[in-house]
C-alpha cells in the first residue's frame, strides 16, 4: 500500500493499462504535450509517445466519434473529456453510437472503450462548468457508469473500465484530484464494476452515496457518531449497473436511508435508489427515505450562493436526523 493522490492513482491506472495492452490509447484535448488539463496524464507522452497519447483539436463530438470508430475495429480507446461539461457536445456519439452499437448490430460490434474526465462542481466556476452528469448517462442502456470517491477506487475502477468490453463512463471528481488515500500498487488489482462498498459501518441509518459525496457522507457520519448515531456509509462506486443487493442488505439492517448525490433532484440517481428501496425494502423501512442533492438552480458564482446550492455535510447530517425523527 502506498499513499497517493486520486490524480496519481488515475495516472497509475492509465500507465499500467497502456503497458499491459498495446490496443489501449489515450485521446483528448491537452492530454499529451500539456500533460493533461488536470495533469492526470502527466508523463504519459514521454513514456508512450504520440501514437498512443493523442492531442486532439477542440472537437468533442469528433474525437468521441474517433474513439467509437477505433473501438468498432478492436482498439481500446480511452477518451478524455477535459470536463464532462464539454462532453455535452459529444452526447450523440456516447448515446447514439457507443451505447447502441452492440445492440443495433446484434452483438457484432462490441464497444470496448472508456469516456472519462472530471465531473461535478469545483469552486466558483459558475453555471456552465459546475454540473454533475451522473443521471444523464446512468439512464442509458448499453453504458456502464462509475464514479469513484477514493484514490483506490479511482485506480481500480479505471483499470476495470479499460478492460471492460463495453463503453464505460468514468466520472472523476474535479475536487478529488488532490485528495489522498491508500492505494495498492499491484498492477493486477482492479475494483469490479457493479460492486458497492460499505465505507463505514453503523446500525441506525444507511447513507447511500457515490463519487465526491462519499467524503461528505463520511464527514457527516463522523459528526453523527459524536452524537451517538452510527450510520452505514454505502459507496455505490458504480451507478450503472447498481449494486442493489448491497443497498437492500444495508437498509434491512438500519431500516432508514438517506441518499446523497451531487446532481439535481429531478430524475436524479437518488430517485432511482429511492424507487428501488420503496419497492424492495418497503417492510424494512421505519421512515420515508430522504434525498440530499444540489439546489434546483444553475450553479451560481457568488461564494455564499454556491455554498447554499451544493449538497454538504450539514445538509446530510440534517437529513439523517430527519429520517431518525431527531429534532435539532
Amino acid at each position, binding site marked *: 500500500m502506498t499513499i497517493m493522490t486520486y490524480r496519481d492513482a488515475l495516472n497509475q491506472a492509465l500507465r499500467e493499462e497502456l503497458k499491459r495492452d498495446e490496443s489501449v*490509447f489515450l485521446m483528448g484535448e491537452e492530454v499529451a504535450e500539456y500533460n493533461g488539463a488536470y495533469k492526470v496524464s502527466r508523463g504519459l507522452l514521454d513514456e508512450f509517445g504520440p*501514437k498512443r497519447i493523442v492531442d*486532439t*483539436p477542440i*472537437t468533442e*463530438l*469528433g*474525437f*468521441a*466519434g*474517433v*474513439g*467509437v*470508430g*477505433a*473501438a*468498432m*475495429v*478492436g*482498439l481500446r*480507446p480511452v477518451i478524455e473529456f477535459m470536463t464532462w461539461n464539454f462532453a455535452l457536445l459529444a452526447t*450523440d*456519439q456516447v448515446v*447514439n*453510437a457507443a451505447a447502441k*452499437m*452492440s*445492440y*443495433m*448490430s*446484434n*452483438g*457484432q*460490434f*462490441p*464497444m470496448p472503450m472508456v469516456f472519462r474526465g472530471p465531473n461535478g462542481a469545483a469552486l466558483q466556476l459558475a453555471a456552465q462548468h459546475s454540473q454533475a452528469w451522473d443521471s444523464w448517462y446512468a439512464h442509458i*442502456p*448499453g453504458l*456502464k457508469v462509475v464514479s469513484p470517491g477514493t484514490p483506490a477506487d479511482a485506480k481500480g475502477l479505471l483499470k476495470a473500465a479499460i478492460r471492460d*468490453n*463495453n463503453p464505460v463512463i468514468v466520472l472523476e471528481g474535479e475536487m478529488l484530484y488532490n485528495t489522498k488515500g491508500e492505494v495498492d500498487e499491484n498492477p493486477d488489482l482492479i475494483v469490479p464494476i457493479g460492486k458497492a462498498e460499505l465505507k463505514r459501518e453503523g446500525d441506525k441509518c444507511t447513507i447511500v452515496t457515490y463519487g465526491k459525496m462519499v467524503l461528505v457522507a463520511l464527514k457527516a457520519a463522523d459528526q453523527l457518531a459524536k452524537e451517538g448515531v452510527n450510520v452505514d456509509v454505502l459507496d455505490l462506486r458504480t451507478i450503472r449497473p447498481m449494486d*442493489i443487493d448491497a443497498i437492500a442488505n444495508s437498509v434491512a439492517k438500519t431500516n432508514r436511508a438517506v441518499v446523497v448525490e451531487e446532481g439535481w433532484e429531478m430524475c436524479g440517481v437518488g430517485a432511482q435508489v429511492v*424507487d*428501488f428501496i420503496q*419497492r*424492495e425494502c418497503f417492510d424494512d423501512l421505519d421512515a420515508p427515505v430522504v434525498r440530499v442533492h444540489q439546489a434546483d438552480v444553475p450553479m451560481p458564482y457568488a461564494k455564499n450562493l454556491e455554498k447554499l446550492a451544493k449538497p454538504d455535510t450539514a445538509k446530510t447530517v440534517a437529513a439523517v436526523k430527519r429520517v431518525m425523527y431527531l429534532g435539532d
Partner: protein
Amino acid sequence: MLMQRRFEERAAEAYAIGKIGGFCHLYIGQEAVSTGTMALLRPDDYVITAYRDHGLALARGMTEREVMAELFGRAAGCSGGKGGSMHLFDRKLNFLGGHGIVGGHIPIATGVGFAIKYRGGDQVCICFFGEAAVNIGAFHEALNMASLWNLPVVFVIENNRYGMGTAIGRSTAQQDVVQRAASYAMTGVSVDGQDVYAVHNDIGVAIERARKEHRPTLVEVRTTRFMGHSMSDAASGTYRSKEELDESMQRDPIVLLKTKMLSEGMLTEDEYKKMDDEAKASAQDSWDFADAAPEPAPEELFTHVLNESPESNAPVEPELAGVAR
C-alpha cells in the same frame, strides 16, 4: 445494380402492405455509386454509411435474404432483426452500418482510419453520406482530423440535391459542396454518379491515395434518388416537381450502362433480359425467405445490450420484459 433495383422494388411493395415497418429509405437511382465503388475494395477494407444503406450493403456482398429478413424484422436478418432498414451491419464484410443520425457516422469513419494507421495497416475506410450532412458539425470535425492526421479515409458525398425535402439551394450556402475539401487541405473531386465507370475511376483514384499515401479525399458523386426521401413521401409533387424528377430519370444509371454495353457489344438484349429475370427471381426468393423466417425469440430482447460472459448477460424471463426487477 439490377439486383439492388429489383430488391428495393420488392422492399417498397413489402412496405406498402405492412411487412416492413419503421423508416425505409430506398437507394433506387443511386446504384451506380454503390456498384462502382464496392468493386474497388478489398475484403479487409471498411465500409460505413448512413441510413440509405440497402444498396451499399448488397453491393458489399450481403445476401438479399439476410437484408430482406432484417427489413422484415426477422432473426435471420443481418442484425438479428434488432437494427432494421437503417442499421444493417456485417462484421464478416467489415460493413460497419447503417447509421441513423445525419453525419453521426462520419467521425466514426475517421476513427476507423485512425485504427488502421495505429496498426500500420494498408486498408481503407470508405464513408458515404448525403450532401445535407456537410452542414452538420460532425462532418467538419471528422474531415479536419482525418486530414490533420493523414488517415486513409475516403469521404463520399452522395449528392442527390435533397436533404429530406429541402433542396440544396435552400440549405447550403456553398452549393458546390466539394469546395469544402479546401477547408481541410484535402483533395476534392466531383463525379457523375449516374455513370458507373466514372464512379469506379474517380473513387478508385481516391482509394489508392488513401491506401498508398494515407491521405483522405472528399468525393462528390452527383446522383438522383428516384424515390421519396423515405417510404413516407412521394417521389415528386411537393418539394420536387414532377418535371425535374422526370428529367433526372432520363439518366437512370442502369439504362445508361445497359445502353453503353449494348452499343459496345458487351451485352445483348437477351442477356440483359436473363439477368433481369434472375434479379427478379432472387428478390422474390429473399421475400419468401424473410416472410417464412421466424421473428427474434422474446429472450433476444435483452441480449447484446452489453457484451459480457454468458452468465452476466443471461436472458431475462420474457414476461418480465420492461418490468424492473
